[in-house]
């Protein structure tokens, strides 16, 4: 996992629950307590899981809810760090379609060793108010994906409705999101 996620996690906790809460979480994860995370560097995936699990227990929040909230926060963090990926993009559907073939390709170039999830799309050329995404990642962070979708909706100021029709946590090979855009592009 790239350091930028750890950095944003620290910001997420500190902004919402204060610096002491973050220190509390770190005290419970002594193996990362002294690590100064930096964006471009890669860290073990397990570390973010440890930090998230500890945070959820400490704040008494369900893990999926925490990930969704972190996803919404991370969307803002990512767009402020990498505004070039939003140039010329006017609708979340457009952004989502660019993620796999453009944004992740560029991320891999910019950050050595980055392993972003694989996204596959359905209904790309179909009605503009619908899109199906298949999400495949060894990390199994599909709630984070939900949070990112919600963050995108918030950023562009248009509503997004989605249902998750398949999930790796319930035995599927991949997670599938059927998305509806009540206000498609051009409306």
């Amino acid at each position, binding site marked *: 996992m790239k350091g930028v996620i750890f950095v944003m996690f620290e910001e997420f906790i500190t902004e919402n629950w204060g*610096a002491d809460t973050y220190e509390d979480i770190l005290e419970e994860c002594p193996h990362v307590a002294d690590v*100064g995370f930096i964006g471009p560097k890669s860290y073990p995936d397990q570390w973010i899981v440890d930090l998230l699990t500890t945070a959820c227990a400490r704040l008494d929040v369900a893990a999926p809810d925490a990930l969704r909230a972190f996803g919404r926060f991370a969307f803002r963090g990512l767009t402020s760090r990498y505004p070039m990926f939003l140039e010329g993009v006017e609708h979340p559907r457009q952004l989502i379609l660019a993620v796999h073939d453009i944004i992740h390709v560029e991320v891999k170039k910019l950050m050595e060793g980055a392993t972003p999830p694989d996204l596959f799309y359905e209904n790309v050329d179909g009605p503009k108010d619908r899109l199906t995404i298949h999400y495949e990642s060894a990390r199994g962070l599909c709630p984070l994906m939900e949070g990112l979708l919600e963050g995108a909706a918030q950023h562009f100021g248009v509503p997004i409705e989605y249902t998750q029709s398949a999930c790796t946590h319930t035995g599927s090979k991949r997670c599938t999101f059927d998305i509806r855009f009540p206000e498609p592009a051009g409306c």
Partner: protein
Amino acid sequence: MDEARWERKLKRERARNAALERAVEDKTRELYLANEQLRAQNESLEDQVQARTLELKQSLAAVEAGSRAKTQFLAHMSHELRTPLHGLSGTIEALNRTELRGEQQRLLQLCQSSGARLMRVIGDVLDFSRIESGKLELDLQPMSVEDVANAAASSFAAAAKQRGLLLTSEVDVEEGLLILADSHRIAQVLANLLSNAVKFTERGSVTLRASSRLTGQRARIRWEVEDTGCGMEATAAANVFDAFRQAEPATTRRFGGTGLGLSIVKGLVEAMGGTVRVQTVPGVGSTFCVETEHDVADPERPRAPRAEVDLDLAGKKVLVVDDHPINRMLCESMLQGCGAQLLFAVSGEEAVAQVAEAEPDLVLMDCHMPGISGIEATRVIRGAGFEAPILAVSADVTTENAAAVVAAGMQGILGKPFRQAELFESISDVITAAGLQEHAPPEAPSPAPLLEVEAALARIDGDVPMFAQLCEVFLEELDGSLRSLRGAAEAGDAAEQRLQAHTLKSASAVVGAERLRLLCFDMEQHGRAGRCTPEALDELEQAAQQTAAALRAELARA
């Protein structure tokens, strides 16, 4: 936050800073290495581009050198072939002026016709090379489609008749149409096509057609040569315009020829911006169709053939410069009746000395000589202030040499081999241009020569017996033609008179009756305008009688 936590946070921030520094250093090193790699690749690319540019320059230089060598070879070939041929034909001409027995005369005619044929082959090869190298230059002058077509047909009349073929010419063009074209090259195209048609037709006919279509100031001319000959299979017809190809290999053995004729036709026609194609049916015949487009020329009379030049060089000093004794001898023989004092030089060096010493009124300068060339010698002579005309005499008549000759300060170039008339004409041209001739040219143009036997003979490959036959036929028909002409004139039938004049004009051209041909031409033209005077008819009849007498004398002599 308590102290311990602050300290841990500080420690973390330091670690973060240290990690960032390392990351920046790593990235800087990475960028440096990538830059180095790019620079090396750039240098290697530049080296490759330089090497490739050098290679291309060398290839280009080699190709240019090859092209120059080819042009030079062509010039030398032309020189090497034409010089001995010049010697041969000049010697034959000189020999022809001596007393000869009948058998000797016949053998000499044979030499002459073989020489003429060889000249044509060399001409073909040179034309082919010029076309190949894109150096063909067209001399655009006003020309009459009708005259060129009729002249072409006339020159093959004898050959066709000899083979028992009916040769007809059908001209359907606007009255008095003149186009801006290279009449020599068009005549060459027609001669090639007609020669093939006559050669490959065993029985039946050969027809030359010329027609025109005017669009504003442009005229589209369609020339057709149709024969009832052996025709060609489609596969042979497809290749018939390729160089060195004849319809089938056996053709070369049976009919001879270089196989360049139709390729030259195609090259010439394409150089004129036209097209040529063939329609052929084996056993039925072939039709070659040439289409060309030209500007329409102003309706003035096309230039009549030049009357023979009578060269008067009395009291003038003429320096003949040539390294070859036979060429000096020929010039001496050709110029002996002109009254000039002849001087000779055998090299460029000697020419320079002779000019300084004798101050001649005219120099005939060979171009290719051992030591300093004629061109070099001319530069030296002109540099010394010599102003009299210098005429280049060279077998190398390529455009490059002609340009070099003029650049060196000569007034013109005469190609070897030349005939006496051509020598006189060239000399006359350069001295007229230089204002050397003291006598003003006569006010009225001298009448055209009565007979041009040599030209007529040349058109039938010097075949004297054939010429005799043609003359006999002409004489048999002449009285009838004249009667028809007078009958039409007296009946006031202008169309018939024009037709009769046209027919007699073609027949006159065949036997070389030049004066009669021109008078017929005039009558035909004036008849068109409805201005045909009785005096003109009298003059024509008188010329016809003189022609008949002269031809009878020729026949008796032969």
